């Protein structure tokens, strides 16, 4: 790749860079606007004509979010805790379940492994919102309504993550696993001490995707949870933004608090994510 990445100075490349930078600015506009709004003092929020950027930045909106809204029935920090707890649990569970299963299907190759994988590929076309009613019935039959479990367990059954790990695991050389078997290691040992370290990129990717999906998921706490004190951040966000323009600053601050963790998690893992997605193809 190095040869192709040299900066070529010609008009064609100049226009390409120019165009791409414009696009980047365009795609960044809403995020910048969100950040700017969260830093605006009250009078700037009501300014006419409205201003895109902030003139006198203040952290008042964040303080208001934490204190004023704190006096309400359910404090903002409680939503924050709910989100962090359920997301962490879902991500940990997803990684464990998908890695174990995908390793077995790809490397242990017990009879039926092809069938399992084909089911998973078909499952890629499955969308949870469309099956919300029967999923709700399953969650309710399992007695998980109004408990944190309802926000954790259903999110763990994601065919996409299983698929990613399985595709990536194909590049672990069989000879390595064979020789460990000859040395008498059981499959669980091999999984923990050989496979997991080699699958680092892919499980990092699963962490990123599953973190983003669950952190941003608002439907779970709307559908399964009626107890206000167990709802999560995206739900809180929608109630704050219903407060109209007077709450615009607080809503933007909440949006910033919701958004930034996901960007940071992605930034930490970017290289590994790109490494994984190269193996995401389906040779259908």
């Amino acid at each position, binding site marked *: *790749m190095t*040869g192709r990445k040299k900066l070529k100075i010609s008009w064609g490349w100049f226009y*390409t860079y120019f165009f*791409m930078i414009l696009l*980047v600015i365009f*795609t960044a506009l809403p995020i910048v606007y*969100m950040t700017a*709004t969260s830093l605006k003092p009250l009078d700037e929020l009501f300014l006419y004509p409205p201003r895109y950027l902030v003139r006198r930045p203040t952290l008042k909106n964040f303080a208001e979010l934490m204190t004023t809204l704190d006096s309400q029935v359910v404090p903002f920090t409680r939503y924050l805790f709910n989100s962090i707890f359920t997301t962490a649990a879902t991500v940990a569970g997803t990684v464990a379940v998908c890695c*174990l*299963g995908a390793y*077995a*299907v790809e490397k242990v190759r*017990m009879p039926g492994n092809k069938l399992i994988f084909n089911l998973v590929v*078909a*499952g890629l*076309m*499955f*969308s*949870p*919102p*469309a*099956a*919300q*009613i029967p999923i709700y019935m*399953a969650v309710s039959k399992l007695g998980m309504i109004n408990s944190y479990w309802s926000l954790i367990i259903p999110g763990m*059954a994601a*065919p*996409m993550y*299983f698929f990613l790990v399985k595709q990536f695991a194909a590049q672990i050389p*069989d000879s390595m696993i*064979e*020789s460990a078997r*000859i040395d008498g290691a059981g*499959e*669980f040992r091999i*999984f923990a001490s050989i496979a997991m370290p080699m699958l680092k990129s892919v499980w990092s990717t699963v962490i990123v*995707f599953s973190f*983003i999906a669950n952190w*941003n998921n608002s*439907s779970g706490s709307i*559908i399964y949870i009626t107890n206000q004190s167990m709802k999560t951040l*995206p739900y809180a*966000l929608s109630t704050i933004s219903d407060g109209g*323009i007077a709450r615009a600053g607080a*809503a*933007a601050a*909440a*949006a910033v608090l919701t*958004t930034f963790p*996901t960007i940071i998690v*992605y930034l930490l893992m970017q*290289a590994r*994510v790109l490494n994984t*997605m*190269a*193996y*995401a*193809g*389906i040779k*259908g």
Partner: protein
Amino acid sequence: MKTAINRRIHAPRLSALSFRMLRYKRWLEGYIMVMPFLLLFAVFVVIPVIWGLVLSVTHYNIVQPMRFAGLSNYAELITNDDLFLTAFRNTVKFAIIAGPVGFMSSFLFAWVINQLKFRNLFSLAFYAPSIVSGTAMSVIWLYLFSSDRYGMVNNLLLRLGFIRDPLLWTMDPQLIMPLIILITLWMSLGTGFLTNLAGLSNVNLELYEAGAIDGIRNKFQELWYITYPQLKPQLLFNAIMSTVASLNVYEIAVSVAGFPSPDYSAHTIVAHMYDYGFIRFELGYASSIAFLLFLMTFLLGRLFMKLFSSKDEI
């Protein structure tokens, strides 16, 4: 074969019987390993699909016992439910624009960015919109496209003299769908973009050199004859993902236009299903909507598998 030979060298005294026992033990461990996923997959994916199909041929409202309905739900849906047809039209309108445009631009941008310097920086900038929460961003979009003079976009258009009165972005049935498509495109380059970018960086560079010798002259021929075939598996993955996402459009539509939307201009299939399932509690009817949607997704998925098949290639 090779493994069997290896085994004999290292452990010559293993009898055929204990050899088989070892294999059974390994398979058993494999089944134990895959069991948690299979269980979850069965309970939250396979059974819901089957259960949804069963529900779709009944009348069921939770309170009264279930009654068998045959295909009457489907018949009602297709022949008698005007609102479903509206939802269907809206969804198709959305999917036909947002799906292909998103799919192609995620490929195009990945292709361009892969050749630029600061590749990682560019990819972060393009991927960031997809990682931010839809709910969080809808707050921002609603301020940007607010229907009064305070809205950033209205204000800009007024000052530039394109319009005389503020546009009613989230209230005018004519403008709602384009706005939803715009926001979706902005938010959904996402996974597709990453898959393409990663796939592109793995294309064997020797292929380009060989291509140059074989008479490929410009970047676009290179794209068509070398890059595209190499990227087919990634494109298939993306096509399936964007089909699923665009046919299931709901969350953005509701957060932009509300529910019900003005004149049902943002009423989608999933919105229709939620209406019957979670507001009217006609679960049988709602399930028939869900199953039709699943069927559409599945058939389109199969079609793409044919279209981007790379089985017959090296």
